[in-house]
């Protein structure tokens, strides 16, 4: 009994230790004047936000670019992943593993190698310095996650419902819009969220293929040494989708365990 309580205390301490360090971000972002050795800023303010939103800087553009690329990449990934996920749900292990390895292969090599290597071709196709090139470079990283998270959504119940709808004369469009999509929606939501997050976090591939297109992680990095307040402000923007994802996942798990 005492062992259990100790375990619970340690687990709670760990959870606090995970979340608490992030609280430095809002404090740093709102600290206009914060000289050592004070533990809290001497003067609070929104200078960080002003710099981020100032006209003529590329930070605001970077946020919009990152968001746009994440949304488009995720949409493309979902369309490409859908049939593969569906197949994966029923395939036997022996055939599933080689496919999974093939999909995961690009995750193993440096993203900068993927980015610069693709740039070599995109240069010839006129795709460098375009958002399309970024979408393709991000797609390699996003696709495996979307496929793997989407696959469990195609449960036997979904397949039975599709079979029944087909017997009742539903055409392909009706089948997709009225039966498959609504039933797979929860998995599709989580897969899209994770896919978007993976694209949002891409650093090396964006740097390699984008050749100067401002993206959020790329414009954030130089501020870390130069102006920590701006870095912290951008970091909060950078963190926001992860927090949204966590809330969604938590609500899902709590609904499942009820």
């Amino acid at each position, binding site marked *: 009994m005492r062992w259990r309580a100790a375990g619970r205390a340690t687990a709670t301490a760990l959870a606090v230790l995970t979340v608490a360090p992030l609280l430095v971000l809002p404090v740093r972002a709102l600290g206009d004047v914060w000289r050592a050795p004070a533990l809290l800023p001497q003067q609070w303010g929104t200078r960080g936000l002003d710099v981020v939103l100032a006209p003529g800087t590329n930070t605001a553009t970077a946020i919009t670019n990152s968001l746009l690329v994440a949304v488009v990449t995720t949409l493309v990934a979902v369309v490409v992943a859908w*049939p593969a996920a569906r197949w994966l749900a029923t395939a036997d292990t022996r055939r599933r593993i080689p496919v999974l390895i093939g999909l995961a*292969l*690009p995750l193993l090599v440096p993203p900068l*190698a993927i980015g610069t290597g693709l740039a*070599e071709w995109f240069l010839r196709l006129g795709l460098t310095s375009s958002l399309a090139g970024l979408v393709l*470079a991000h797609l390699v990283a996003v696709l495996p996650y979307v496929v793997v998270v989407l696959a469990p959504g195609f449960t036997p119940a979904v397949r039975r419902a599709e079979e029944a709808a087909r017997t009742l004369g539903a055409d392909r469009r009706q089948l997709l819009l009225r039966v498959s999509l609504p039933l797979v929606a929860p998995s599709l939501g989580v897969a899209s969220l994770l896919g978007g997050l993976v694209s949002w976090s891409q650093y090396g591939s964006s740097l390699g293929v984008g050749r100067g297109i401002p993206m959020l992680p790329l414009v954030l990095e130089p501020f870390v040494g130069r102006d920590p307040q701006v870095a912290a402000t951008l970091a909060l923007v950078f963190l926001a989708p992860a927090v949204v994802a966590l809330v969604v996942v938590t609500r899902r798990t709590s609904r499942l365990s009820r």
Partner: protein
Amino acid sequence: MTRSRAVLPALVVTLLLFGGALAGALRTSVAPLPGQAPSLAAWRRVLGDPAFLDSLAVTLAVATVATVLSVLVALPLAALLRGRRTVQVLVTLPVLVPHLLVAVVVVLWLGPGGIADRVVADLPQVVRAPSGAGVVLVYLLKEVPFLVLLLLAVWDDDVDRRVEVAATLGVGPVRALRTVVWPAVRAPLVLGAAVVMAFVLGFLQVPAVVGANDPVLLPVYAIDATRIRGLEGQADAAVALLVASGLALLLAAAAGVLARRLDGVRR
């Protein structure tokens, strides 16, 4: 029935972009200018560069230390978190947080003028430390939760039931961990460790923010080459990145073979 050609779009897109990227990097490494006759000059230059060899050695050392430590911390942590849903969700938060963001948070806490610096004077610096401590710390914070999540996924109720059966047969908890849980989790753990090591070999954003300035890790070596040495540097960068890619793929292949063998032993 779903036919197996359903996986083709995903597989073709992935392998085309992946193969294209590696072929592109190879092309840059031998002929950085369009229309240029291919030459191995960049390969000779980089493989003979003492700074590159230092970078390679340090990268491998940091990757090994970060991976081994992540595994050693993740195992007991996963055991502790079994069955604690809410805490599990919170501890897995770092999996969703980008690497760059973890590096930024580490700088704000432990960097020069950071919170720790204000509380304790003369604290040894981990950020940009030549030992690579800062890089190892960021990867620990990111990859331990990743490995915990992986362990919890394979350490399922079935494993727990077998532990219970073992307990009724008089097997103590420590021995049950060794004889029941370990054989069930070790193969996925080996694969997870290979992924962690590949991340350390390849990610630029972590050493760019907290890594030492000399020697630099391989991805930083590559980006420095493109920034400082122009077109020639692009070929050099491609060589460094291809070496890192080759190492990561070799490592993953070895992990795959090992995992299969371990899994075979269990069955």
